[in-house]
């Protein structure tokens, strides 16, 4: 740092007092333990959740298990009460966490709720075979909490619960009886869910309601949607339906990446699109007995093209816009 300061001084880019101030501030500035402590909080939550979640099943026929359930319920209730008591006033936009541990306590409460619910179902068969209801309750709870208390972690839990609820609702028989995960219903639902999750951000932006949740929705949406399209192509062999859908999805996310400047969605869309196109090509040329060289050439040229596109991405946009 001394060298840099001296160099900047010599080039007259900063003044003597700047250099002195920076040097003294740098020496005085306290050592931040922010990251370490946050990691410890997170590890604590994860360990508690895993430990309690396992203990509850281990001790089912022991005397202590009522005490254990009371303990878990107590901790869960405490976490929820804490989260509700210390909440920030509701806002349509992003709010700051009231305390540094707030997010972690809320997360612990939600995870313990799942542990408790799973246990109640296992032991007392509360929901019977209506598994849809078992996933519906946490879904509603998590979405409600996520919007009310403004928490993206809980929103992710809610979206996961939504995905399992939708998945279980559309194809309970198939999954339960035949263990058939490649069933058409699941794949079509996945596509629909992906599309739904990708539309929500636009609604929330239009209504100016929790716009900062967009990324969480889109992130789930892009993967669920594209993987479902690929599964439809590969597992169901219905390329005629799913390849155009994949193209639409890729186009949508390329457009999104372009307008919002998100390199993440650009890369993800390109990778999924490439996988889909390559599968289509290889699958349909297999019967033509092409030379091995053809495929090598395909990979060589197509990758060169994709690399060119990714590097010159900005120029493509400019051409389109002008």
């Amino acid at each position, binding site marked *: 740092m001394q060298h840099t300061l001296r160099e900047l001084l010599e080039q007259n880019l900063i003044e003597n007092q700047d250099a002195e101030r920076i040097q003294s501030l740098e020496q005085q500035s306290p050592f931040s333990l922010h990251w*370490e402590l946050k990691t410890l909080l997170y590890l604590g939550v994860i360990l508690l959740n895993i430990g309690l979640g396992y203990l509850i099943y281990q001790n089912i026929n022991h005397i202590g298990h009522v005490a254990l359930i009371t303990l878990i319920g107590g901790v869960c209730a405490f976490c929820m009460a804490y989260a509700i008591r210390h909440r920030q006033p509701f806002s349509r936009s992003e709010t700051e966490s009231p305390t540094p541990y707030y997010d972690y306590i809320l997360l612990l409460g939600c995870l313990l709720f799942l542990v408790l619910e799973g246990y109640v179902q296992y032991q007392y068969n509360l929901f019977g075979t209506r598994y849809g209801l078992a996933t519906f309750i946490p879904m509603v709870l998590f979405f409600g909490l996520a919007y009310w208390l403004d928490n993206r972690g809980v929103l992710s839990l809610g979206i996961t619960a939504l995905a399992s609820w939708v998945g279980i609702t559309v194809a309970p028989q198939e999954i339960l009886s035949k263990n058939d995960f490649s069933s058409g219903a699941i794949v079509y639902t996945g596509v629909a869910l992906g599309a739904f999750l990708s539309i929500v951000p636009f609604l929330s932006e239009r209504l100016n309601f929790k716009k900062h949740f967009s990324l969480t929705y889109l992130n789930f949406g892009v993967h669920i949607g594209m993987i479902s399209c690929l599964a439809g192509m590969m597992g169901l062999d219905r390329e005629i339906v799913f390849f155009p859908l994949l193209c639409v999805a890729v186009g949508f996310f390329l457009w999104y990446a372009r307008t919002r400047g998100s390199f993440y969605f650009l890369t993800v869309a390109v990778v999924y699109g490439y996988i889909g196109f390559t599968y289509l090509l290889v699958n349909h040329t297999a019967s033509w007995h092409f030379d091995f060289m053809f495929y090598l050439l395909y990979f060589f040229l197509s990758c060169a093209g994709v690399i060119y596109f990714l590097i010159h991405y900005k120029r493509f946009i400019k051409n389109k816009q002008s």
Partner: protein
Amino acid sequence: MTAYNPQWLDALRIREMVAAWRRNEWLGEDKWKNIQAHYPESFYSPNLFVRIGLAFFSLILLSAAMGLLGLFFDPDSETAFAGFCLFVGVLALLFLEFWAIRSARHYGSGVDDMLLYFAIGSIIAGLCMPMPYQTDEVVYYSVAFPFLVLGSVRYLDRVLSAAAFLCGLLICLKIAMQVPNLAIYLLPLTGILFSVAIYLFAREGQRRYNWRFWHRQLALLEWMSIVTLYLSINYWVVQLFAFEALQIENIPLPWFFWVLTFVLPIAYIWAGVQQKDRLMLDTGLGAAAGAVFTFRYFFHVLPWAWAAVIAGAVLFVGAYFSIRYLRSHKGPYTYASEGDKIWLQELEEQLIEQTIASQNPPVPVKKDGFGGGQFGGGGAEGNF
């Protein structure tokens, strides 16, 4: 020494340092702008995700290219194939040097990374292939070592630095293992000496201004040496190594290793807090967890579920009170996050990208011989 343009590397380094001052508001906006204008660079260093994507497609492309060349040259013996690998490796290296770095100005773009790994990998494979089947492992490592070191020095690559570190350590350990009777004593000692030597080297190197381009790699080596030092004295690791390599069940001086297993993490944490050395502190915390696991492995004091609950509660409560204390007491330590972003936050920003996209685009340099923004000029906005 380095293949990349040193002026631009300096510009990157200075901008990064000044950006941190700017974030803390130690420096005015106009001065920050002046400094940016004074230190232009036009590397193509895309956003992290684009880098991953480019690396992914580069790997497929390079493999396909190798396949095509293979069809053309058709190497039919082992020696011919070894020669072919060498040829491909050298070709990739030339391509990296003259196209990717000199002409296209890539720096950490995924393309240059992958070209480098592919080249070094092919060269090492080409050299190792003709060796007889029963060749000692040490010979392979010794062949690879110089290429890893040279590659990491010339191309400032941290992956190769890490590989060179592990390769060097393995060479030392394999040699120590062949000493009759003394191997069991020499193994941990070799690990300790190697780690300490690299630690001192990395610390000294980071003090040298002339080595400033390699400071990141040296920091990585510093961290790796702290980790391997702990692994060299951890009771579980030593015991496992003695059993796997030498079929010895009871290691000598067990108390010595037990004591160090617990003392060293504490020493790390203490040194980290005392000297405000984050690398030491974080490694110490990890090592402390390692010490607990080691103890649990040999003495089953608690069922693991209970251990997890208790550990989780202790961690949570400990962190809770530490944060409360730090927030109400001013001192040399603070809970407030530093200007430097941790990698998770950086990842999140890379996801959103709005902050980065709205930054000033780099000033293109009009220098002769660099083709004035021929490649990736616009895309260079995605700083990482």
